[in-house]
């Protein structure tokens, strides 16, 4: 089957045409970055925490099977059912089977990137299960039929009037009522009955703790706690890389997570799930879905350290100006650009190029993933695997040959000068010239440095 490449540049161009959305998106996420900086300045040990977090994750990933088995054994002792899902299909099947066994038809869930990754809703819904997202942003995205555009704030690309329109369509509210309070109230009124009547709850999770067989879920809305405790059945799904060895490690990660994500010291709710509630049932699904393969990639395995804080997205000047949906993938922004190609090289081959490789992402990453260096390495891998567009590849072949031949090169440079100073504007600024679409070309000059040097130094007797 022919896979269509995501065209980030085109989607981004469309995003840029809408000034109010663009400005809000850029400023809102930049504000989150600023708040993250303030939190960093409050903690003198910030860089030590980052190093610790990185070391813990690298150690854990290097011993992943042992820690996962330790988790499984301890979780079982706690009365938790543990499942292993090799891929998205197996994950969805496991969830479907658990629900079927319980006769559950209404599933409420909190935000989980893994269920997005597995496209779980579109598996369950045809099987008669109604899935309701309880995170506000995620619910907005569900109602609008879109993927989350950000891993922490899934609807950040929308403005209040957008939400008012979506709610009007689904909740019969006034489409012109743009008060955030009444919109939040509408969501609450719509969600509460669903939550109270649901027969199964699902959450993602931020951390698995091997030594205790427990897991930790961090949210700001309390919706994960409702989703997990109102129904008697709680299914939690987590990627296998979410594991840490000890409970004490939480002291490092909890301090970093919300500070990096939103610039708040801690999430409103940090819940440690230790086992099923009385009379209830608890399931944990450990999802691989390409992670083991990624662990074997010498240059890219450290991307598994990611704790999904979104700091790299908030700081990324490209992400802020192109919106998460332009990446056409569950994971967007810098972290998305280095992990999406592991799911499908061709489909996501443009994403490592949707970056200036400025390096800000690497600097804010709380677990020190060298994101911008991996972007650079991905470009090489994609070129070697023939995943570059034909024109780009040919231009680089030609440029490479030209740059190796000083005489030809000199002719070309002089030609550029002549072209810039003699060609009319409509030739220089046409649709073939992407540089000139939103920018002026450099001004022509009388003389290159090369010829100036020849005249002013070589002719005046300076020996080469």
């Amino acid at each position: 089957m022919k896979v269509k490449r995501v065209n980030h540049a085109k989607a981004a161009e469309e995003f840029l045409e809408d000034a109010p959305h663009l400005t809000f998106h850029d400023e809102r996420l930049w504000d989150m970055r600023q708040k993250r900086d303030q939190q960093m300045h409050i903690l003198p040990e910030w860089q030590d925490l980052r190093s610790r977090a990185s070391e813990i994750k690298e150690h854990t990933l290097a011993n992943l099977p042992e820690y996962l088995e330790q988790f499984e054994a301890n979780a079982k002792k706690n009365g938790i059912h543990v499942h292993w899902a090799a891929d998205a299909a197996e994950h969805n099947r496991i969830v479907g089977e658990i629900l079927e066994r319980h006769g559950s038809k209404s599933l409420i869930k909190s935000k989980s990137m893994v269920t997005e990754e597995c496209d779980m809703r579109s598996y369950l819904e045809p099987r008669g299960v109604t899935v309701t997202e309880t995170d506000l942003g995620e619910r907005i995205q569900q109602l609008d039929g879109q993927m989350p555009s950000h891993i922490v704030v899934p609807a950040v690309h929308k403005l209040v009037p957008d939400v008012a329109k979506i709610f009007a369509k689904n909740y019969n509210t006034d489409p012109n009522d743009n008060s955030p309070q009444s919109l939040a109230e509408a969501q609450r009124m719509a969600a509460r009955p669903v939550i109270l009547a649901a027969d199964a709850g699902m959450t993602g999770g931020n951390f698995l703790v091997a030594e205790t067989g427990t897991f930790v879920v961090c949210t700001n809305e309390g919706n994960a706690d409702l989703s997990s405790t109102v129904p008697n059945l709680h299914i939690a799904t987590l990627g296998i890389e979410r594991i840490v060895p000890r409970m004490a490690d939480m002291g490092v990660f909890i301090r970093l997570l919300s500070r990096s994500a939103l610039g708040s010291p801690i999430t409103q709710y940090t819940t440690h799930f230790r086992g099923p509630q009385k009379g209830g049932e608890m399931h944990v699904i450990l999802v691989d879905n390409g992670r083991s393969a990624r662990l074997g990639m010498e240059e890219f395995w450290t991307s598994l350290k990611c704790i999904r804080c979104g700091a790299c997205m908030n700081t990324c000047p490209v992400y802020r100006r192109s919106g998460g949906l332009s990446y056409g993938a569950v994971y967007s922004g810098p972290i998305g650009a280095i992990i999406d190609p592991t799911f499908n090289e061709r489909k996501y081959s443009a994403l490592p190029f949707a970056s200036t490789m400025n390096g800000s992402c690497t600097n804010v990453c709380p677990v020190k993933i060298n994101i911008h260096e991996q972007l650079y390495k991905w470009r090489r891998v994609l070129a070697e695997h023939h995943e570059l567009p034909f024109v780009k590849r040919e231009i680089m072949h030609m440029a490479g040959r030209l740059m190796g031949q000083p005489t030809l090169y000199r002719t070309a440079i002089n030609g550029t000068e002549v072209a810039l100073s003699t060609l009319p504007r409509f030739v220089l600024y046409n649709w073939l010239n992407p540089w000139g679409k939103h920018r002026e070309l450099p001004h022509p000059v009388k003389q290159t440095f090369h010829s100036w040097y020849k005249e002013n130094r070589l002719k005046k007797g300076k020996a080469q």
Partner: protein
Amino acid sequence: MKIGLFIPCYIDAFYPNTGIATLELLEKLGQDVDYPMNQTCCGQPMANSGCNSDAAAAEALFVKNFAKYDAIVMPSGSCTHHVRDNFDAIPQTDEVKHVRAHTYELVEFLHDILKVEDFPWAEFPHKVGLHNSCGTLRALRTASMSELGEPFFSKPMDLLKKVKGISFATPKRPDECCGFGGTFSVTEEAVSARMGYDKVRDHHEAGAEYIVSADTSCMMHQQGCAERNGVPIRFIHIAEILNGARA
């Protein structure tokens, strides 16, 4: 010390004054400088596009041109970053290793190697906004990075402070990338141009008459964005100010 001067292609073709200023400045500081006439490119555009093998000819020629010098100096952060950190399309012979270890961006060469104390000929009675390219900032580390919360330092600022009459404007997002990004400026032209526009507006609103930078490529892009959007701001390479340009 014998210095080989590398003038990147876009400076050679579009900003010869930056090349001239770099050469004259090094000469004023008493340095023995050569400009090898057969130079072309360091290989960065090909390597950054993932086409590393296409960078091999440029890299080999670069080494051929510059292996005999004690120091290779260039008024470009991103080219320096390429040579120092990513120059691996060709076998890493002793010559290649020598070139990579002795290549300097102009500001770090003046600041760290020559340790220049003053520029008595320099005077620039204008308010400038300093643009640190991502190459100089996050790869060469010539200034502190806002994301790390480290104590403030800035090698280009140290040098500029020695210039008579100069004053500084502080943009709101001093570390934000301007969006040039090499081939990114063409393949992602819409995002690139928007970033450039935001960057020049930030400097303009902070009161800068000039944007000064150690990287001409960023300024070539920013100038194009400023002119298209009617943002009245001028551009000058740090070498020109340190060499005594008055405007």
